[in-house]
């Protein structure tokens, strides 16, 4: 079995968003170096990007006014883990019951399928597919993310319930891979959603994917996969990055 070249991102204390390019001191105004395509400016209202209102509700400023009432306007929150033994037990359960969101975001989705077969038999690792983000805990980004799929990725990610884990599959998720200079490809996934495990390769074989899952399980057991909390913590930064590349933003600021 070939060994996968995996690159992990470790959980860091809240407030320090990994190796992200920018730490933004004022959540209301987001400026900073462009990731991804780097085209265009951040959409702003009154010259400023407004994610949260004075009452700390989601502004949902990009929605049409008649749609606003249809969506929840509560922003995501950081939820502290339990302590020690209990959290370890829960983490064990989480790692042994990984439910994948069955959403083929890129060409790598084809590599997911073999895991179901008798040859790879992901079930024996407690992994199984799930048709709805609500019930899934692992989001496998199957390859490059374009502007179009990014919107869906963000939406689906936000609709998963925490703790939730993201597996970036293939080189494209890391740096754009062979599409690195495409006008339409997102080069670096973790500027937009927190990624727990990257699996390098173009494309990585199912074995590599399995190896990535094993790695993810280890990390979960170690309590290192707190992507959901990281996302909540740096919500405005992520949102600003997302909005920079998604021009026709017709969804609420957080898709519950």
């Amino acid at each position, binding site marked *: 079995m070939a060994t996968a070249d995996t690159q992990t991102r470790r959980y860091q204390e809240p407030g320090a968003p990994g190796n992200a390019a920018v730490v933004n001191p004022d959540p209301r105004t987001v400026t900073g170096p462009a990731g991804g395509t780097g085209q265009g400016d951040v959409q702003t209202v009154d010259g400023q990007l407004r994610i949260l209102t004075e009452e700390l509700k989601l502004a949902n400023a990009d929605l049409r006014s008649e749609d606003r009432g249809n*969506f929840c306007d509560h922003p995501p929150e950081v939820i502290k883990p339990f302590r020690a033994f209990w959290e370890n037990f829960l983490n064990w359960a989480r790692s042994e019951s990984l439910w994948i969101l069955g959403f083929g975001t890129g060409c790598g989705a084809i590599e997911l399928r073999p895991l179901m077969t008798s040859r790879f038999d992901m079930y024996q690792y407690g992994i199984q597919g799930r048709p709805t983000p609500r019930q899934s805990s692992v989001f496998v980004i199957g390859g490059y993310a374009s502007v179009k799929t990014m919107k869906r990725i963000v939406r689906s990610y936000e609709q998963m319930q925490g703790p939730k884990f993201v597996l970036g599959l293939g080189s494209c998720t890391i740096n754009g891979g062979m599409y690195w200079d495409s006008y339409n490809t997102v080069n670096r996934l973790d500027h937009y959603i927190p990624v727990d495990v990257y699996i390098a390769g173009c494309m990585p074989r199912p074995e590599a994917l399995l190896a990535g899952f094993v790695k993810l399980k280890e990390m979960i057991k170690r309590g290192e996969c707190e992507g959901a909390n990281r996302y909540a913590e740096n919500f405005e930064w992520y949102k600003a990055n997302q909005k920079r590349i998604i021009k026709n933003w017709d969804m609420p600021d957080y898709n519950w």
Partner: protein
Amino acid sequence: MVSPVVLIAASLGFAFLYPLVERLGERAATRIALLVLAAFAGTTAGWTVSLIGSGVALTADTAGFVAPLSIQLQVTAVDALAMTVVTLLALAALVQLTERATDRWHGKQVVLFFVLLLGSYGLIMTRDLFNVFVFMEISGISVFGLLSTSRDGRVFEAGFKYMVASGLASVFFLIGTAFVYRSVGSLSIADITAAAPVALASPVGVMGLLFLVTGILIELKPAPANGWAIDTYQAADPGIGALLSAVNATAMVFVLVRVMPILAGASPVFVPLVLIAGAGAFLIPQAQALLQESFKRMLGYSSVAQIGLVVLAIVIPAAGVPFAGVALAVPLVLLLNHAVAKATLFWIADATGDDASGFGGSLPASLRGRPALLVVAAIAVLALLGLPPFPGFWAKWSLVMGLAAGGHIGLLVVVLLGSLLEVVYLGRWLIMRMRHVDDDATVVSQRIPADFAESRADAVSGAASGASDASGAAAGAIPVGATVSLGLATLLMAGASVAALLGSGVGMPVLIVLIGVAAFAVLDVLRIPLRLQAIVAIAGLSWWGVSAVSGAALTLQSGFVLLFVGGAVVQLVALLARPGRRAGLVALIVGMVLSLAALTAATSPLEVFVAWELMTLTSFFLVVRGRFAAAASVRYLTFSLASALLMLAAFSLATAANPAFGTGGGVIGTLTTSVPWAAVLLALSVLIKLGAIGLHIWLPSSYAEAEDEVSSLASSVLSKAGILLLFLGAGSFAAPLFAGVALNQVLGWIGVITALAGGMMALFQEDIKYTLAYSSMSQLGYMVLAFALMSHLGWVTALYLAVNHLLFKGMLFLAVAGIVMRTGTRLMYQMGGLIKRMPFSFVSVLVGIIAVSGVPPLAGFGGKWLLYTALIEQGWYLQAALALFSSGIAFLYLFRLIHSMFLGQRKTHHDTVTEAPAAVLIPQFVFLVIIIAISMFPNLLIKPLQTIVEPAFASSVRWEGYTVISSLGYWNGNAVMYVVIGVFLAPLLWLLAVKGRTYRVEQFNIVFAAERPHTPQSTHYAYNFYGHYQKAFGRLLDPWVERFWSGVSATAGTVSQTLRAWNTGNPQTYALQILLYLFLTYLVARGGL
């Protein structure tokens, strides 16, 4: 007393002198004419008062010689009464004719009017055969002269035909008279009657009499030789139409009355001959009238039919309660009832200038927004149809009883069938006139906009129907003459009704119904607002209900009183939510409830029937109030009255077989009959009212298209009347019918199939009210099934289901009323997500549907448990399985109901919807509390029901604490409740303990294949919810029954068209028909010679 001859001299003298009187001025002359008529009325009324009950007759010989030598006039009490009514109607007619907008009568017209009146007096009073002929001609010629008043140029053609026909009739009459004189040697009717058995019994005498009677019959315009008369009615001035049918026809009938003893004495062939003639004259025009487009023509058909009925009544001795023993009372009452009612209708046609009947052509809603005229028209139509409390009802009852007692089953069928046809066309006319202007009278099923658009206009519900009432037809002013004459006629009818009612011997409960309606009608006249009326009604009914049942032992009757009055009182609270006035609403509701109560208190078949009819009527007028209820109410009226007629037939057959029928006074089985056919008819009648499969097509649309509060009352309270009747007739259904199969077994199958079919149809409705209506049908099917078991448990079940259905269907319908009120639509897929806006309504619907579907722990399960236990106990296994299956179906449509309205996506334009008004919620929660209570403690309900049933069957279940134990199984509602609370609370607490942070999100925050749903409207799955079920069943779900009844309707239409075509409009054809009629009478007589 004034001599009869003076009346004739006075009218003739006045006619002669009228040109002189007119020199005083036209107005003054007509006033004087009215005064003269009033004096006539006073005279005749004086005769009536002094003659009635005295048994003597007022006699006047002319020329100073006694009877055989000279012509004798005679007035009996019956004659005097008829003359009084005729004079009053003539008075009203003259007011109408001289005080109308156009074509006011004056000069020669008034003269001829008096001549016509004189002719009628003469016909009634004379006792000389040839003199009859003279007066016949006087009447006829004055009518011909008056015909020219009409603005319709076709009247001359009609008049010509009339003259040809009437000429032939005169010839026949003269030939007959000649032969009679030749044989008897006298023209005095008394002499001829005395001599008839000897002198006229020979073939020659009989043949002469044949001419005589044919002449008289032709003058009575009998079908099928009456096209000329119909043409005349159509083309003539409606005022003449009124005179023809009210004055002229009434007088003509008396000729037959005079001659009948001669005929009967001479030969036995004449009674059947006249019966056949009467039957034909009654039935054929009713069928011909079905599709008439001209109202006047329709009234013409109706008039000749009514006279046919009178002819029947003359020959058939009266039986039954109201007029037993009073000679000629039945035909007289029928005749006068018809005269007043028909004159009223003609005058209305004249006043509104509206000659459309409601079939084809334009359909003006000419009575909408004219309440007074509407009331008058309704009274006239109902009186014509022979419905209580109008005098015609009692006569019809006696007539039918007489027919059955005489063994004239064929005639019975003819009378009932003809009456039904009359209901269809007259009822339809009335409905068309009072319907809402928006209503194109085609709505008998749910209406779904073709493009699924949120079309607000289409979806406007009954809720708004009251608002635009006044904007109905442009109400033109009614001429003063019409007002007076209609008022006079209505007073006359009212007076006669009161007199007949008091004389009929029906008990207090029936009277209370009418008093109640009248009292609230007075409130309407005083313009008391709806809310106040509702409060008065609630207070009054509560007081009445309490006083009716307090202290009384719990019996079937008192139980049903509680059910009816209690259920209605609670639901009346909902009316408090409606501001403003709703003329008639409370009055009719009170009437309906009281008539239901009267049904429980009825002690004789007559009272049962009266109460039943009153209930039908009040509920019909409630249904017809709906905004799009015209077509539905046509069905409702037709089927309800068909049901009533079947019941009448059943009662008459039963009474004929056993005069003591229905006087048993037992608690259950008051109406038990041992005649199988009567039992079948009774069952059919009840099944129609219960909307049993095949007979149900009226039910959904009527319940659904009525106003929302009315729907709830009808479905929850009114529908139980049929159940009560089942119990009253219980004993009839158990006897073996054929091949050892008893009626109750058939009933059982009908019940269970109804339950299943109703559920199935409810499944595919998009309109919430139709869903509930079909659900009612299904539930009633269960009750029939349970009743049909004829066992202790079965009956307890039937009653349990009845109570339960009242509670939850009241809740559901009222909740729906609130929702419809707030959202302005009845289509479920246009609702959705209302739970957050209308939480209380949701709770009520939730409890309601749990109670319907029988899910433990609520009371519905008790009903199901009892039902299946009872069914299996009796060995009705297949029925039990089917019932269970349909209960599953019920679960489906109920879920659809609650889902489509309250769950799923809320439409954006419903964001501001508020909770239903408190007044609508209060009754729901009253019912809810009751449901919870009887769920916790089922013995609270079941034990009293056992008490009710015990007189009929010994108990077959026993109680251990809260556990009810049957031979098959057991059920402890109390324990179930606790267990359910336990198993519900435990997971709930667990969930609250382990759940993480829960965010309350909106309905639109859903996963949608990584997309965003477009709008709530496009995201709510509610339309065609059970499409797959429909697909699975395929053609089984075709509307067979609807198709069948459409076929029946089309066939009736074809028959009507065919029969209509008989009246070709050609005078020679009419003459031919008259000759043919003569030939037919000859053949009939020959057959009997």
